[in-house]
Structure formats: structure tokens, C-alpha cells
């Protein structure tokens, strides 16, 4: 149970980083931390005690292995996270070109 609570703590650290920090780069890092907390949670859900990796090997009978389904899911999630991070970084670079700052409280042209 404690490992799930640690995942929640990691998620909350990322959420704090996204909500509280003003630098766009720090927000991107916070999103990355959130993503990895979720991935770690999925991997831990599929774990069983003393299980080994779900890979076939020569001359070995595998009796106790971890669940491969969350691992395949997390692999897809990592790919999507890579694309999302690249998109956010591109947007951050454009914002820096336009406003000359990474501080979100100084980006005020769209204030209503």
C-alpha cells in the first residue's frame, strides 16, 4: 500500500509544480513528473511479489511473472508523453520569441 501512497506524493509534487511555479520550463518539468508518477503507478499495479519480467527465454520455465499488460500500456503512454512534451516545448519557444520571457505572469496581451 505504501508504494501507491508514494506515487500519490510524487503526483502531488508535480501538481504543485504545475500550479504554483511561474516559469514555463518548470511547468513542463512538472507535467513530466506527473506523467512519470502515473506510469509508475500502472507498473506497480501489475507487479506481483517475486515476479520476473514477462520475457520468454531459452531453457527456462517461467512460473511467476509480472502482468505484461500495464507495461505495454505504459510504453504507449511514454510515446504519447514524448509527443506532448515536444509540442509544449515548441509552444514555449514560440512564446519566448513573442514576449521575450518565460514568466507566465508577464504574458498579459490576452488579458480580458
Amino acid at each position, binding site marked *: 500500500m505504501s508504494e501507491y501512497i508514494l506515487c500519490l506524493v510524487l503526483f502531488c509534487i508535480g501538481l504543485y509544480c504545475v500550479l504554483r511555479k511561474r516559469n514555463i520550463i518548470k511547468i513542463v518539468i512538472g507535467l513530466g513528473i506527473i506523467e512519470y508518477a502515473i506510469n509508475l503507478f500502472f507498473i506497480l499495479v501489475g507487479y506481483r511479489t517475486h515476479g520476473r519480467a514477462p520475457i520468454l527465454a531459452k531453457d527456462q520455465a517461467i512460473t511467476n511473472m509480472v502482468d505484461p499488460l500495464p507495461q505495454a500500456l505504459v510504453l504507449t503512454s511514454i510515446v504519447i508523453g514524448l509527443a506532448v512534451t*515536444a509540442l509544449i516545448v*515548441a509552444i514555449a519557444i514560440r512564446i519566448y*520569441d513573442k514576449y521575450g520571457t518565460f514568466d507566465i505572469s508577464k504574458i498579459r496581451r490576452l488579458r480580458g
Partner: protein
Amino acid sequence: MRNKEPGMTLIVKTITRLTVGLILLYGIYIVLHGHISPGGGFAGGVIIALSFIHLMLAFGREVALKKLSEARASLFESLGAIMFLSIAILGFLGGCFFFNFFLHKGKPFELFSAGIIALCNIAISLKVGAGLFAIFAVLILFKKLGKDE
């Protein structure tokens, strides 16, 4: 001593020249053994892209783009997507989507087995490798455009 040419210092350049080929070969190994060991198209493609990114970090943008230009990266990326789709559609020769038309199932733990899975891995690695390299190159291009304005 300041060197006029772009990129990092001589130490980094020498080490890069020694290791970049090995990294590329390791990526190709991961791709080709994707169906019998951990790894596969995505992981191998990322390693292949990292070898070119390594070149770009050490020698500057022009040298890396001379090895693999943006247009050619775009071509490889599209080629990977079309190859994957055509492998899937060629399965209709045998009756269904993603049908194994190429080789028979083969034996476990042999390199030339598993039919179309190896071909799919190669297609995915082309797509991922060229796409990741293109993302990195375009981000640097953005930075350069911002400086010019």
C-alpha cells in the same frame, strides 16, 4: 584557445567520432532482434535518432543535417508509415488484416522467424528515428529563427 568552428571542444568531438557509429549499430541490432528479445521498433528507433542527435550536439547543426537532411528525414518518416500500412494491407492476400504472409511462424529464438513482425519493427524504427530527429532539428531551427528577428 577558442575554436572558430561550431560545436563543442576537441575532446567531445573525438569521443563522438569514436562512439557514434557504435550507437547507430546498437540501434540497428535492437531493431533487428526486436521479435526475440526486449526492445523493438520504438526503442531501436530512439537509439538511432539519438546517434544523429549526438552528432548534432557535438559538431553543430550543419554537419548532422549534411548526414541526414530535413527533407530526407521527412522522406524516411513517410516511408516508415507507408511501409507499415502496406504490410498491414498486404495481409489481405492471406485473408485478413495483418495476416502473416511473408514467412511462416518459424521457431522461437531464431533471427529469421516470426514473419512480418520483423518487417513491422523496421518500419516503426524508420518512423520513430526520423521523426525524433526531425523534432530535434526543428526545435533548433525555431531557436535560430527567434534570434534573427
